[in-house]
């Protein structure tokens, strides 16, 4: 590995961590799309900053861009408060308008300089090591590493200092307000951090990757845990993994690093989405199938309880009368037998004592619909819930 390769991976990892932290809170606060809006609407801020300083590396650019990000949030909130449109519509109205202004400003005034929309939106990590920070003539490393590193340090400091406040206000705004920390300050603090992170990172990796790095690791982590600290740790872990693995994929394919990091993020999310132990699609579908079987079982037992006639309780009758397919009928029958709820004699099904007791309780529950009733039932009978 050359030193440039190490530096690129290091920058990618630092960006990933810096994005994952505010991203986790954005996802939890249902504000994920704000990051997309900010990443687009900072454009006019950058352009205006460039006109003032004529220097793409000036810190004023970052300040102005972050300021535009905050303006976006404020505008969205203002429009939403008028009650004329819903929040998502407000977001969708504000950022394209600001973005358009940015594009037009560039087209009208900056055609001859190195400032185009592609560069702002797409970014190129591979060039990051060439832009060095020189202090008194000595090379101290890539500039973007310093910029994003500083932002990350500030983010971590704020996170540690205000962890409790952030946590409470994320999950219970009312409680946070009654405990005396202003939800508005925390909200705007979080928005400022997201805005600054977006601005600091887009230069290195492009706006879209910033959005991906904010949302994807947090969403992936959210599928695996509901504990805030674990979620943060997992999100950071997924971010770092995707950054490094994505770099090598890009190296192998000779393609955009940002693009391949995003693709790896997508694959990681897809895997977790499918296979997460309790919230993955496969687990959810399995659970739904089990629940369907349980409901069928219950219907079947109730049917038995209501009918004393032999012909109504014949095994073959089940298929026709309750209208199940053969497979389902057999599953239900086996399940009931395994749990000692029924016994079968000469192909005639009847309830056992346990089955009878269970069915009575079930009817009781259905009639009263009280949750406390079902708790006992779970303990006593539901052996098949796993």
């Amino acid at each position, binding site marked *: 590995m050359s030193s440039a390769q190490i530096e690129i991976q290091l920058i990618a990892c630092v960006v990933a961590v810096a994005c994952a932290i505010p991203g986790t809170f954005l996802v939890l606060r249902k504000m994920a799309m704000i990051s997309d809006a900010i990443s687009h609407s900072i454009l006019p801020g950058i352009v205006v900053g460039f006109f003032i300083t004529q220097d793409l590396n000036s810190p004023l650019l970052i300040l102005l861009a972050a300021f535009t990000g905050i303006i976006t949030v404020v505008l969205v909130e203002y429009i939403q408060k008028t009650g004329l449109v819903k929040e998502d519509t407000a977001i969708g109205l504000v950022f*394209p308008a600001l973005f358009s202004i940015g594009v*037009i400003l560039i087209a009208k005034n900056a055609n001859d300089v190195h400032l185009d929309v592609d560069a702002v939106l797409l970014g190129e990590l591979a060039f990051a090591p060439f832009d060095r920070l020189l202090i008194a003539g000595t090379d101290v490393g890539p500039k973007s590493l310093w910029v994003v590193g500083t932002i990350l340090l500030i983010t971590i400091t704020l996170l540690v200092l205000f962890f409790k406040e952030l946590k409470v206000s994320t999950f219970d705004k009312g409680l946070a307000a009654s405990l005396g920390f202003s939800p508005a300050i925390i909200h705007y603090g979080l928005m400022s951090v997201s805005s600054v992170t977006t601005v600091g990172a887009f230069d290195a990796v492009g706006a879209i990757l910033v959005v991906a790095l904010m949302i994807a690791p947090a969403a992936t982590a959210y599928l695996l845990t509901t504990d805030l600290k674990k979620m943060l740790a997992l999100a950071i872990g997924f971010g770092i993994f995707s950054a490094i693995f994505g770099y090598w994929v890009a190296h192998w394919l000779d393609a955009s690093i940002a*693009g391949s990091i995003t693709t790896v993020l997508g694959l990681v999310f897809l895997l977790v989405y499918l296979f997460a132990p309790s919230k993955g*699609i496969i687990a959810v579908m399995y659970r739904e199938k089990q629940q369907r079987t349980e409901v069928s079982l219950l219907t079947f037992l109730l049917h038995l309880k209501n009918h004393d006639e032999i012909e109504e309780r014949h095994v073959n009758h089940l298929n026709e009368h309750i209208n199940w397919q053969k497979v389902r009928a057999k599953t239900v029958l086996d399940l009931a037998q395994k749990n000692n709820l029924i016994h079968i004699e000469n192909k005639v099904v009847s309830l056992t004592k346990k089955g009878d007791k269970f069915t009575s309780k079930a009817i009781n529950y259905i009639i009263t619909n009280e949750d406390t009733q079902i708790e006992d039932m779970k303990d006593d009978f539901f052996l098949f819930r796993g």
Partner: protein
Amino acid sequence: MNLQEYFSLVFSDYTLRTITLGTAILGAVTGMLGSFAVLRKQSLLGDAISHAALPGIAIAFLITGAKDSNTLLIGALISGLIGTFWIRGIVTKTHLKSDTALGLVLSLFFGFGMLLLTFIQKQPNANQAGLDKYLFGQAATLVESDVWLMAIVTGICLLIMLTFWKEFKILLFDADYTKTLGFNTKFIDILITSFIVLAIVLGLQTVGVVLMSAMLLAPAAAARQWTNSLSVMVLLAAIFGAFSGVFGTAISASQNNLSTGPVIVLVAAVFVVISFLFSPSRGLLFKRIRFIKNRRDLELHKTLTFMHHIAETHEDISHPHAIKLLNNFQGYTRTTLQKLVDKDYVELHGNMWSLTKTGFETAANLYTKQSTEDE
């Protein structure tokens, strides 16, 4: 070229006519379908889909190796639909919320598309130049066949919309009720969503990925302010969209270095701002005026009640009192007093005021029953 020249040229010049017609049709169809997106609270779906279409474009190019815009659009349509259904899957099957799902699909698909694009650029195929036009859009690349395609799709949209109007409408406002009526909600739902995706994909070439979502939202959001009726809203949104297209094209053609997409979006934004401010029933301006008027009425009532309290202590309700008495009362001003005189509730004699009989009665009944005269 200035605006007048543009309008004189638009009928004779082939390029101008094609672009103007194209953007007008695009604006109309996105406005129409956008109304449904806005009312279904799927405003940001457009943003997500327009980004999600990118890998489809790239893959279509990789498979066919040709830059035929119809093939690319089909690729975009397929990946847009996959993105939409994945968003739906995430929202229904997991506890992730719709904004997270939108943001995820948007950024992941777009990133994957970027990966493919850069991969394509490394291929020894000279044909690939210009694929990135889809990112930012370029109305100038519109040719007559594109406009025909748009017109045909718009026609089909219109036909489907008129056929299923009742179903669309009822699904929009009460999904559960629709289900109980026995309609196939899933089918109607997929139908609307597919057409929204189709409209977005059509617009990619003209205004680009980033600005397409605004085209879907802005005309609809503007139209919403003027009416409570769905049919009027759809019609208005289509008109606003078409006008944004025409004006945007006109302005960008009359200036140098002005890309059409952003200008169209800004024109649409102007429509939104005007609607937000000046719509008679919902607009901010009239709301403010109504608010001020209500506050004035309230102050008038306050003054009257205060006078009523004083007058009550006297046997003769029209016993004159000094105006000075009202001085520490906040609702009182010279103008409110004059207004009360105009309404014949109060009589002024020099520095003294006295309640009239009607004034006394109105004040007494002010908070017990609605007085019809003050409405």
